């Protein structure tokens, strides 16, 4: 007998997958060389998927023998992923054409990577997490090297691929060992086995350690972070935005689900581990970011640091910490997509303007863009009334509430260090005179729309965060049962 298929449980992901397949067909139709319509159709698919997620709000079910879960947690992440994917699609349209690299496959791959992400967010089984991870990653490996013929692009793609596959090896071996220890890869059954005493089984411990290594790569936590800077720098800027937002959110979703639903009974054990990872990531990310001259590279280290901040919430755990993580990922998605979106619009001497010095004098020539960028940067620093402040406030607040006061203190000190390099960009925009040819803004309607959405998100979540925080906290509850 065929297993029962619940389309309901995978509807948001299916919408994305179906759209991607539709695009594969549409791409074959003869066109006048423009591929804009593919992005628009893709965008429609993303919106459809988000509407489906909203429509399913409040469900809490398991499908495919517990392999897939449909709960508030998955749906919340579907929205985050939807925002990330949608923003990236909008940002890519004119950007790709400008770089002479427009092609239908780009949008298709973006959508398939989003399918992988939703799969991870709704996974109830380690093997489904693995599958989602691979679907997402394989698309991203290709997207990272999209600018064929550029040395940096090839290098980024290759490094991402080799190291990603290496990390997958750890991840999979970890799954195998956990399977060995508990006899299952299902998170529920692992939880039962762990509560029943498997927690001290060396197989499980080693397996879990390898699993963490795999996750550490995807969330770019120190010491698995080294690929981040090179890939962020070499990949097309819109792809960088996708890697920084969507893939990170999906990885955190899966990590949080494993930790909170399968390993909740042994929280003190893993909390210490993530305490260390959080401190290392925050500190190393921020310190190295100080010395960067390339904005994309700087934001890469900044994203490592942010992974550290988010891990603070993971350490705190529970509805407070988990809710903080979810909320912060939403905030981070808007902020980071916006920041990369601004950079992607800038050109100087016909090449992409990615050096810090390229920003000099931007405020006088493009005041609105400079102001928008400043808002995103201030949100990254965590200055009220931007979303970044509220997000950090809840992450660190959760840590304090659960007794990890020192962790919060280290986080705050790190935020102070980080202020330096973000504000440096603002200083360049507002207080430095440009040397040589000016940096120009390449106008783009879809990208402008994306920036407006991101700006809305940052301001909305910063000024009126309460309803979204409630959603985020409610989303974590199903994991804690």
């Amino acid at each position: 007998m065929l297993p029962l298929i619940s389309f309901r449980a995978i509807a948001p992901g299916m919408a994305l997958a179906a759209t991607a397949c539709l695009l594969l067909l549409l791409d074959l139709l003869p066109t006048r060389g423009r591929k804009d319509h593919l992005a628009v159709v893709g965008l429609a698919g993303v919106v459809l998927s988000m509407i489906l997620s909203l429509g399913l709000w409040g469900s809490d079910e398991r499908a495919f023998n517990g392999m897939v879960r449909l709960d508030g947690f998955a749906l919340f992440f579907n929205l985050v992923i939807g925002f990330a994917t949608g923003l990236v699609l909008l940002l890519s349209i004119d950007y790709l054409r400008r770089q002479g690299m427009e092609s239908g496959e780009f949008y298709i791959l973006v959508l398939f990577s989003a399918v992988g992400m939703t799969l991870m967010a709704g996974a109830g089984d380690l093997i489904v997490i693995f599958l989602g991870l691979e679907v997402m990653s394989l698309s991203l490996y290709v997207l990272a090297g999209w600018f064929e013929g550029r040395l940096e692009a090839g290098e980024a793609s290759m490094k991402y691929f080799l190291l990603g596959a290496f990390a997958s090896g750890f991840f999979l071996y970890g799954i195998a060992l956990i399977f060995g220890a508990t006899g299952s890869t299902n998170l529920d059954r692992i939880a039962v086995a762990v509560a029943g005493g498997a927690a001290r089984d060396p197989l499980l411990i080693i397996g879990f350690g390898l699993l963490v290594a795999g996750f550490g790569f995807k969330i770019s936590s120190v010491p698995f972070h080294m690929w981040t800077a090179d890939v962020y720098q070499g990949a097309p800027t819109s792809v960088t935005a996708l890697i920084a937002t969507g893939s990170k959110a999906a990885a955190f979703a899966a990590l949080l689900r494993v930790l909170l639903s399968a390993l909740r009974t042994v929280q003190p054990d893993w909390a210490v581990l993530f305490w260390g990872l959080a401190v290392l990531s925050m500190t190393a990310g921020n310190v190295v970011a100080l010395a960067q001259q390339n904005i994309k590279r700087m934001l890469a280290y900044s994203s490592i640091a942010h992974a550290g901040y988010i891990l603070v919430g993971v350490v705190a755990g529970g509805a407070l910490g988990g809710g903080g993580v979810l909320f912060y990922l939403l905030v981070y998605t808007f902020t980071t997509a916006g920041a990369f979106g601004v950079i992607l619009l800038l050109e100087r001497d016909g090449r992409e303007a990615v050096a810090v010095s390229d920003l000099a004098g931007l405020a006088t020539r493009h005041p609105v863009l400079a102001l928008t960028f400043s808002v995103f940067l201030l949100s990254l620093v965590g200055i009220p009334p931007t979303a970044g402040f509220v997000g950090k406030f809840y992450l660190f607040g959760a840590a304090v509430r659960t007794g990890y006061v020192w962790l919060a203190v280290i986080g705050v000190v790190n935020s102070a260090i980080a202020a330096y390099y973000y504000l440096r960009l603002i200083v360049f925009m507002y207080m430095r005179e440009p040397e040589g040819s000016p940096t120009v803004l390449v106008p783009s309607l879809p990208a402008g729309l994306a920036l407006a959405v991101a700006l809305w998100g940052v301001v909305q979540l910063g000024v009126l965060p309460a309803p979204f925080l409630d959603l985020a906290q409610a989303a974590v509850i199903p994991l804690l049962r």
Partner: protein
Amino acid sequence: MARLVWLIPLFPLVGTLVNALFGRVIGHRAHWIAVPALGASFLASYAVFVRVSGGETYTGDLFQWIAAGSFQTAITAQVDPLSAVMLLVVTGVGFLIHLYSAGYMHGDDGYARFFTYLNLFVFSMVMLVLAGNFLLLYVFWEAVGLCSYLLIGFWYQKQSASDAGKKAFIVNRVGDFGFGLGIMLIWTTFGTLDYGEVFARADASVSVATYTAIALLLFMGACGKSAQLPLHTWLPDAMEGPTPVSALIHAATMVTAGVYMVARSHKLFEMAPVSLEIVAWVGGLTAVFAASIGLVQTDIKRVLAYSTISQLGYMFAGVGVGAYAAGIFHLVTHAFFKALLFLGAGSVIHGLSGEQDLRKMGAIAPRMRVTAVTFVVGAAGLAGLPPLAGFFSKDEILAAAASEGHTLLFLLLLAGAFMTAFYIFRVVFLALFGASRLSHEAAHHVHESPAVMTVPLAVLAGLTVVAGLALGLPSAHGTAFSRFLAPVFPAEEAARGLAVPLVSVVVAVAGVLLAWLMYGRRPVTAEEIAVPKNALHSLLLHKYYVDELYDAVFVRPLFALSGWCARVFDLGVIDGAVNGIGRLVVAWAQGLRRVQTGFVMNYALGMLAGAVAIVAFLLARAR
């Protein structure tokens, strides 16, 4: 009433946004946005005021702002008689000064920027006054500080202006540090930041020591914002800003926020009597200290700045001896006559093409009649000559000090009153009358300011004349003003006889006479004014060397320390723009980034090492 209340901040906010976004297009028409915005805001304030005089009050949330577990804070507005009065002053005086600015700033390159900041300031100040909880108060406390910083450094091309902005910001940080701690302490003590709830819960169940700590920390913030000893040094330098800014922010409204805050939280201060005592004494000492410096200054705006510090001291002294209504009354009248004096000084400066030095003024009254008349009215108001507003309000404070048994404080304030009368009439005689010491060129150009500037002067002069008689006449049940504030403050004692007013009038007249004897009776030369005659004069001229002291004790050691850090840790640093600890971190960064070799091998090795370390750690823990 709810809608009316929110309209008050809405208008200036809209004005700010419009001028900020479209300033380039609007350019020199910016006042068409900013001035009507203030006018509308004033009308709304007036409507609210009328309702409040009818006995209505309002407390309401705009929306839930922060909710973290038990920590809940909303954007709350609270309107009671105290805030109604403050609103009226802020928007009313603000409106006049906006109007004046349209003339004063005419032709400035940053015209739209100026009105953007000015509207933003009024918005923040209104929100500060409306705030119904300490967190919101703190947020807008900082916001007005930011506006102050932006406006002091408005002419940022001038080194001294941007330095003064920085100084104001940094000195205020010292006070705000305490203020922030005080608010946190309120939160941990009472579990809420809402005014109503905090004051309702402020009873004997909390120790006096806690109340003292809270009160003193809050007062630390007030000292910074209201430029009281020892954090007064920023205000004189703040005169680098355009004169309307000095009038609005650094005389009439923002600097009085400290007084407002102390009066607003008087329940907390009263639970710790010693803190009120400290408030009174800091106020009294500041009043005399700043007035004495004002005696010898040669820059017309600096005299007024020290005068402001001194008058703020009076307000604190009043609040400190429990005469809250008197303190707030003085705040209101001071807003009128000090704004008038600043705007008058601005008009003089405008007429003399930018000259601020008293040594290069004189005998301009015949050529600037409106300015001269209104300035003299303002001066008489400040000196406390009856029947002007300053007489009544200062008298209230003096009487309260005398009757509450603070005899020493009373004498101190009396000495201050004498100095006040002297220094302000010294300005009058030196600037407006006597012999002309104008440069030839300036003398040629002296002209009265346009109507857009003189009309506000006339209005403020009118207010200075009538406010005291209308609101400050003592009766058996206190003044009209204190009766209005009765729902907020505990009742004050009734009229106190004629002895104190008489003494204070005598003192004020003596001060005016002495000023006339020294500067008005015969022409004085520039050298006579400036060259110190003796050690005391020299001490005053150098403002008691407080700036030099701070420079020697705080600023220079700090610079020396950071210079030392820079030399020691300056290893392989490319970016030289950072100092102190910043350099250390950057040096780290430079070291740490070398770990990132670019080789896939090394990255993979790092990952393996990480995985092994994690597994080893977990295994060790499981043991």
